C-alpha cells in the first residue's frame, strides 16, 4: 500500500508537524510520499525530501495553493489519490479545512485527529474533548486521515528523496483570497515549542497579559498560549487559544497562569510532559492534573519566578 502525506508549511519553512505525520504514515506503509502544495515553496520540498523514510516528494504550485485555499488543495490532491491507498494530513487549521473535502469526493468517511495507528484499518482518536478515546475500524477502500501531530514523534532527517514537480495549477474560481493578518513573533510556534506559558482570564487586560505572560515566556524561550476566556476578552490573539477547539500542544513544560482548567482547556494541553499551575484558588480543577501546583496570586508569583530564574 502507498501513503501520501500532505506537508504543513508556510511556503518558506516546513513545519515539524509534517515529520510527525510521516511517522504516523510509516506505521501504515513503507511507501510514503510527501505532497507539497504551495507557491514559491521549492525550499519546503527540499526540506521534505530530507525526511528519513520518504520515498519521493511531489511539488505542485499555484497562487491559490500558496494561500492554502481548500478548494484548490482538494483539486490538487484528488487526482493523485488514484495512486494511493491513504492520505494523511496534519490536523492544522489548513489541514482540517481541506481533508474533509477530499474524503467527501472519494466517498469515504474521514478519520479525524488520529493519535494512534493500530493497523492499516484501525485507528485511535479522541472524542468529547479528549475525555474518551475511540478505536475505529474503517471499511473504506481508501483512507482520509487527519493526524494529531503531538501524538507522534518527529521522523528524523537523513533521507534524500527526489522531488517531482506536477505542472497543474489548481485554482478555486469561486473563492478569492483578500488579506491576512498574521501575528508576528520571534517566539517559537505554539505547536512546536518545548515550553509554553499560557495566561487566562485572571490577567484582566491585554496590557497585563503582555506585562506578565510575555516576559516570562521570553525568559524561558517559550511560546505563549491562552485560554479561550483570555482570547475572547481580547487579551491575546485568537491563534494563542489552547484547547478542544483551539490548538493542541504537548510541550515538555506547560505553565498555566490564572487558568481554571475547564475540560475544553485541558483537552489542548493535558498531554504535556510537565504541567505547572499558578492559581490563587486551591480548588481550581487545573491542580488535579498539574505536576507542580502553586496556590498563590500570580501578581506576586510571576515576578518572584522571574527573579528565581535569574
Amino acid at each position, binding site marked *: 500500500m502507498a501513503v501520501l502525506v500532505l506537508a504543513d508549511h508556510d511556503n518558506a519553512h516546513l513545519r515539524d508537524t509534517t515529520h510527525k505525520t510521516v511517522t504516523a504514515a510509516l506505521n501504515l506503509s513503507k511507501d510514503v510520499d510527501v505532497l507539497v502544495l504551495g507557491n514559491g515553496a521549492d525550499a519546503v520540498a527540499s526540506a521534505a525530501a530530507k525526511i528519513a523514510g520518504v520515498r519521493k516528494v511531489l511539488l505542485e504550485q499555484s497562487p491559490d495553493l500558496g494561500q492554502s485555499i481548500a478548494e484548490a488543495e482538494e483539486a490538487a490532491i484528488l487526482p493523485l489519490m488514484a495512486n494511493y491507498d491513504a492520505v494523511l494530513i496534519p490536523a492544522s487549521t489548513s489541514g482540517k479545512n481541506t481533508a474533509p473535502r477530499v474524503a467527501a469526493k472519494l466517498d469515504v468517511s474521514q478519520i479525524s485527529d488520529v493519535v494512534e495507528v493500530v493497523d492499516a484499518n484501525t485507528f485511535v482518536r479522541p472524542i468529547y474533548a479528549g475525555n474518551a478515546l*475511540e478505536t475505529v475500524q474503517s471499511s473504506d477502500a481508501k483512507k482520509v486521515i487527519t493526524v494529531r501531530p503531538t501524538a507522534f514523534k518527529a521522523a528524523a532527517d537523513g533521507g534524500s528523496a527526489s522531488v517531482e514537480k506536477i505542472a497543474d495549477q489548481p485554482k478555486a474560481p469561486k473563492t*478569492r*483570497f483578500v488579506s491576512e493578518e498574521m501575528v508576528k513573533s520571534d517566539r517559537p510556534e505554539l505547536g512546536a515549542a518545548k515550553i509554553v506559558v499560557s495566561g487566562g482570564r485572571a490577567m484582566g487586560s491585554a496590557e497585563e497579559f503582555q506585562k506578565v505572560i510575555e516576559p516570562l515566556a521570553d525568559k524561558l524561550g517559550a511560546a505563549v498560549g491562552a485560554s479561550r476566556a483570555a482570547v*475572547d476578552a481580547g487579551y491575546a490573539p485568537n491563534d494563542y487559544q489552547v484547547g478542544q477547539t483551539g490548538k493542541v500542544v504537548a510541550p515538555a*513544560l506547560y505553565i498555566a497562569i490564572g487558568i481554571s482548567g475547564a475540560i475544553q482547556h485541558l483537552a489542548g494541553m493535558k498531554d504535556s510532559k510537565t504541567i505547572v499551575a499558578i492559581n490563587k484558588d486551591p480548588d481550581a480543577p487545573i491542580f488535579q492534573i498539574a505536576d507542580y501546583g502553586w496556590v498563590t496570586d500570580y501578581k506576586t508569583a510571576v515576578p*518572584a519566578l522571574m527573579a528565581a530564574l535569574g
Partner: protein
Amino acid sequence: MKVLVPVKRVVDANVKVRVKSDQTGVDLANVKMSMNPFDEIAVEEAVRLKEKGLVEEIVAVSIGVAQAQETIRTALAMGADRGVLITTDTDAEPLAVAKLLKALVDEEKPGLVLMGKQAIDGDNNAVGQMLAALLDWPQATFASKVEISGDKASVTREVDGGLQTLSVDLPAVVTTDLRLNEPRYASLPNIMKAKKKPIDMKTPADYGVDTAPRLKVLKVTEPPKRSAGIKVESAEDLVMKLKNEAGVL
C-alpha cells in the same frame, strides 16, 4: 435569500462524560443535552443577517433522534422560521450527515448554509467542508466575521498564525468559530411563539441516502489518567524542582 442552519443535539459542554465500563461508548443516561455551541453561534448569525434585512427565511435542520426536535425548537425560539428533522437512530457519521444536508439543499435551494465548525461530541470538524465539496460550493470555515454584499460573502477566518479573509461567491458554506458572536437567550414570548412554528419530519429514506456507518467503533476507552502532583510554596522551590526533578529547565 434563504439560509439553512444545521443544528446538532449534543451532550452539554459543561458535562464531563464518563466512559461505560463495557467500553461500548460514553454513558449518556440522564446527561444534559444541548444544541452544539458552534451551531448556536450559527443560528445567532443567521438571525442577525435576517434582522439586517439580508435574509428572508431561516430553516433549521437536525439529523438525529426524535428528541432533536427540542434542539430545533431552541433554534426556532432564537429566530429561525421553520425546522426539518431527519430522524435516525444510529449516530450518523459526518459523511452521511453531509449527504443528507446536500439532498436538503437541493430541495430548499438556500443561498447560504451557516453551520458549526465542529460538533463537540465527535470533534470531527468535517461536515461543513464535506457538504461544500458535495455541492461544489466554495467554503469559508472557522469564521469570526461574516459580511454579505450582493452575491458575495466576505469571511474572516481564524487560522493558525492569525486571521485570513476570503471572499466567496454565494451560494457557499460558512462554518462558525467561537468569536463570531455571542448567541442570545430566547425570550419567553419567543419560546411560546416557537411552539407554533412548523417542523417537517423526514427520514434518510425520503432523500435516498444510505447512512450505514463506514467506521466500526471497536471500543471506547478512558484516556490515560494524570494524577495531581505536589504543591510548591515558593518560586525557588518551583525552579529547583523543574530543574532537578522534572529536568525540563
